[in-house]
């Protein structure tokens, strides 16, 4: 009986899987077009799966081993089962191999089962609680079914009841694992996830690359939508990416807004996007909610994700809570791009509805009217540095370094950092110049607040200004400007060699252009700015500068690519969505745990956020300040570089 039923069962499962696959693909394709190379995409999947995806999964050893055993065991046993049972080719080694792989899969399944006994809060429950049982059913059923085929059991062993039990087990297994994959069960992550690896919207991410700049909107084409409000306005491969989510909740565990009790949970957000493509309601979601939110939510009238009035699938506050720190993206084993989705919807809210909350509207108006978020006169950009006699690039034919000052020129705290940086550059005889009043805001804040129009206007004017001058590279002490100049101006024709000041100081120290005394400041920890670390992969240079100062960094539990955001990115301080606690307070707690007396930072936003934490707390010092304080006098300073303490000028 088994040798008739088994091939039928497998064939039926495969046919159903193919039908489901076509339906699912048609669903994704309802999104906007995004050109991909089909063949190249498909052939790249195995390598990306084994290298890039596994590299992320591996951060959790338990689940990595479990996944290798279960998924590897299943794929091998399924292929072998089709040969052995489907075509009745049990001869020789094949049957034995099938036994081996089902056994491996069984071990993996038991590990999955154990994980699910008392799962951590970040894991979704619901159908995922059923999955380990389905895995066990398949592996046990297939193992026992194969025993007669290799001759370990007589052909007609047991009664018809036993045969029926086996058929039921295998049927349960294949329905979950084969066509469940394409019909929306928990195994859909395998199908959607594999295709997502091939057709990812950011192909540059794979093979050790990095792609973190936001994608530009086409503002010249009036018919092109300004951001996303309906699920069909995402590109089809973004939709595919949402569907790949396995609800492991790693994003939830690292999200600073979630931890602060703000109404954002990256996992729920992605699941809401999935719901918007399928059922239209979050009633079936079985994971943790957005903090402070209860009840079910549905797609609003006209299929909108966010309602202008009343309630829809996602609240606007959820989207405005995001600090765009990319911790979720970094942590996602399925390579989902949460931040892109957040900014896409923000773009619609700002550009179509004009509903940037909090101080957002003021800041954007200031950026439009004065080219800086504070609304200061553009002609007062250099007021802070009247005593420094900074060389202007427009008076020069060429400069080795263009020092991009950023909007920190209007902030008295950041002016101290800039002074320190200039002191070090002068000590190293660096030929630098500034744009002075011709510099504008880089557009970072406008872009993260969804105002792509203002961003593009600022970017294009800055690029035109930069095109008039000749310089070798740009150095800036603001990682946000650094990221935008380096990664986002390229789409508008601005390609530059850009250094964050920590990277440039490291070069100066390495090449011996500045020499340092040992810094005597006590114990130090280092806070990685998101836009320097996760956005640009620069983790080493700041640490190596600190090492050159003779400082040993007491690393925080969350440092490097897992660094926790200070709460200052993505316009979060501007829109200021209320939560249960403040993100910088949590970060300061991380810092306190190291016992450090000083936290070294490399970003004006981080400085402002961390210094906003009430004292007593560790001192916040920019890397440039630490270096400037430790300069030794051996290399001859330039004639006009004065060593006396500069006097603060109030603008």
């Amino acid at each position: 009986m088994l040798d008739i039923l088994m091939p039928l069962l497998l064939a039926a499962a495969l046919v159903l899987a193919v039908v489901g696959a076509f339906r699912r693909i048609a669903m994704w394709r309802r999104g906007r077009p995004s050109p991909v190379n089909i063949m190249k995409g498909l052939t790249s999947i195995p390598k990306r799966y084994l290298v890039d995806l596994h590299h992320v999964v591996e951060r959790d050893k338990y689940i990595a081993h479990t996944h290798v055993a279960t998924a590897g065991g299943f794929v091998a046993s399924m292929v072998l089962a089709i040969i052995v049972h489907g075509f009745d080719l049990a001869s020789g080694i094949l049957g034995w191999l099938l036994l081996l792989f089902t056994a491996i899969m069984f071990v993996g399944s038991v590990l999955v089962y154990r994980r699910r006994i008392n799962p951590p809060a970040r894991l979704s429950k619901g159908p995922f609680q059923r999955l380990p049982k389905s895995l066990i059913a398949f592996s046990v059923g297939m193992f026992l079914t194969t025993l007669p085929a290799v001759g370990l059991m007589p052909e007609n062993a047991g009664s018809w009841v036993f045969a029926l039990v086996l058929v039921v087990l295998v049927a349960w297994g294949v329905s979950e694992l084969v066509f469940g994959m394409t019909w929306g069960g928990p195994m859909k992550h395998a199908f959607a996830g594999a295709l997502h690896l091939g057709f990812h919207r950011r192909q540059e991410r794979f093979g050790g690359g990095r792609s973190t700049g936001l994608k530009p909107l086409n503002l010249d084409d009036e018919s092109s939508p300004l951001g996303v409000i309906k699920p069909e306005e995402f590109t089809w491969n973004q939709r595919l990416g949402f569907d790949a989510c396995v609800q492991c909740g790693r994003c939830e565990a690292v999200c600073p807004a979630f931890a602060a009790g703000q109404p954002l949970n990256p996992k729920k957000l992605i699941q809401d996007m999935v719901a918007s493509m399928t059922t239209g309601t979050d009633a079936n979601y079985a994971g943790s909610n957005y903090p402070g939110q209860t009840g079910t939510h549905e797609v609003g009238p006209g299929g909108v994700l966010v309602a202008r009035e009343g309630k829809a699938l996602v609240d606007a506050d959820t989207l405005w809570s995001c600090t765009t720190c990319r911790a979720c993206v970094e942590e996602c084993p399925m390579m989902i791009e949460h931040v892109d989705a957040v900014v896409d919807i923000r773009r619609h809210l700002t550009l179509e509805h004009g509903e940037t909350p909090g101080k957002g509207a003021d800041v954007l108006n200031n950026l439009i009217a004065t080219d800086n978020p504070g609304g200061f006169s553009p002609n007062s950009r250099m007021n802070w540095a009247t005593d420094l006699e900074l060389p202007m690039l427009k008076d020069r034919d060429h400069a080795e370094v263009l020092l991009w000052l950023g909007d920190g020129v209007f902030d008295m705290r950041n002016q101290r950092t800039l002074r320190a940086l200039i002191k070090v550059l002068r000590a190293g005889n660096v030929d630098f110049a500034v744009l002075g009043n011709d510099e504008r805001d880089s557009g970072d804040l406008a872009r993260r607040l969804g105002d792509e129009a203002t961003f593009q206007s600022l970017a294009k004017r800055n690029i035109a200004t930069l095109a008039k001058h000749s310089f070798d590279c740009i150095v800036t002490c603001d990682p946000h400007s650094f990221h935008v100049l380096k990664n986002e101006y390229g789409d508008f024709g601005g390609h530059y060699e850009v250094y964050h000041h920590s990277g440039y100081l490291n070069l100066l120290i390495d090449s011996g252009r500045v020499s340092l005394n040992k810094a005597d400041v006590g114990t130090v920890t280092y806070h990685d700015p998101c836009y320097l670390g996760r956005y640009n992969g620069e983790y080493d240079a700041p640490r190596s500068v600190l090492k050159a100062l003779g400082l040993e960094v007491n690393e925080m539990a969350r440092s490097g690519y897992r660094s926790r955001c200070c709460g200052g990115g993505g316009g979060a301080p501007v829109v200021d969505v209320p939560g249960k606690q403040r993100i910088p307070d949590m970060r300061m707690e991380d810092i306190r745990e190291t016992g450090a007396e000083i936290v070294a930072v490399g970003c004006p936003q981080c400085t402002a956020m961390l210094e906003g934490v009430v004292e007593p707390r560790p001192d916040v010092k920019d890397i440039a300040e630490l270096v400037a304080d430790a300069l030794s006098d051996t290399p001859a300073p330039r004639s006009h570089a004065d060593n006396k303490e500069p006097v603060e000028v109030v603008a």
Partner: protein
Amino acid sequence: MKPRESDKKSASLSISVLVSTGRHPITGRPGRADQDSRAVELAMNLQGGSVSLLHAGQPTEECKEALRGYLGMGIDRISLIEQSEHADITEVLTKTLKSSNPSLVLAGTQAEQGEGSGLLPFLLAESLGWSLVSGLVSIESVENGQATILQALPRGQRRRLKVRLPAIATVDESAERARQSAFGPARRGTIETISEASHIDETLASFEIKKARVRPKRLKIVKSSSARDRFKAAAAKSGGGGGQVLSDVSAQEGAEAIFKLLQEENVLKL
């Protein structure tokens, strides 16, 4: 997002808002004029009313860019009455308003550039024969051809007035802030240009217009040990020390009081 106030009843009320091109106080870039956009906000919040925006001036690119700021608030179209430089727009606006016959005309108190005398609404009211209210901060209700409004007085005081429509009202800078102007609707909205003959104001044409220079101002130092006094001095609006409030007096008594004051101030010399 806070829901807009939207429960004010006013069936088929047509409102015209006169909008000018603004000039940013620091950079001088064109944009919405602050008071005018508050007037648009007031008009948009009045449910059931139909809002039309009117601008008379030179149809330059700069002007259109500034007008798009109003469109970005969610307005579909603006009528731009083409006028040449130095034109006195009172006449053409009177003509347009007479033919469109709105129930209420809103305008900012004063333009941000050009003559900026703030006289236009008064001249319009005079030529149309309508009532004029200055310092409008909110419209409470419109019933039976009568609007109940709040007028701003110094130091945050408010006066409730009933005005017979049609009327012209100038909006105070303490009226509700204008909503954010969004790029999408600003780009989509239409600016409808209407050609009208210009009536050149010869006097205005003979003016020489220069950039205002900020004159140094002597600081008034209040020597007082009490923080409350110093705060009051800093926050006080100028003028008005004495004076008296007369209420429930006869017309005769009122007139006598006014007459006496005018004599004291040397306005009337008898």
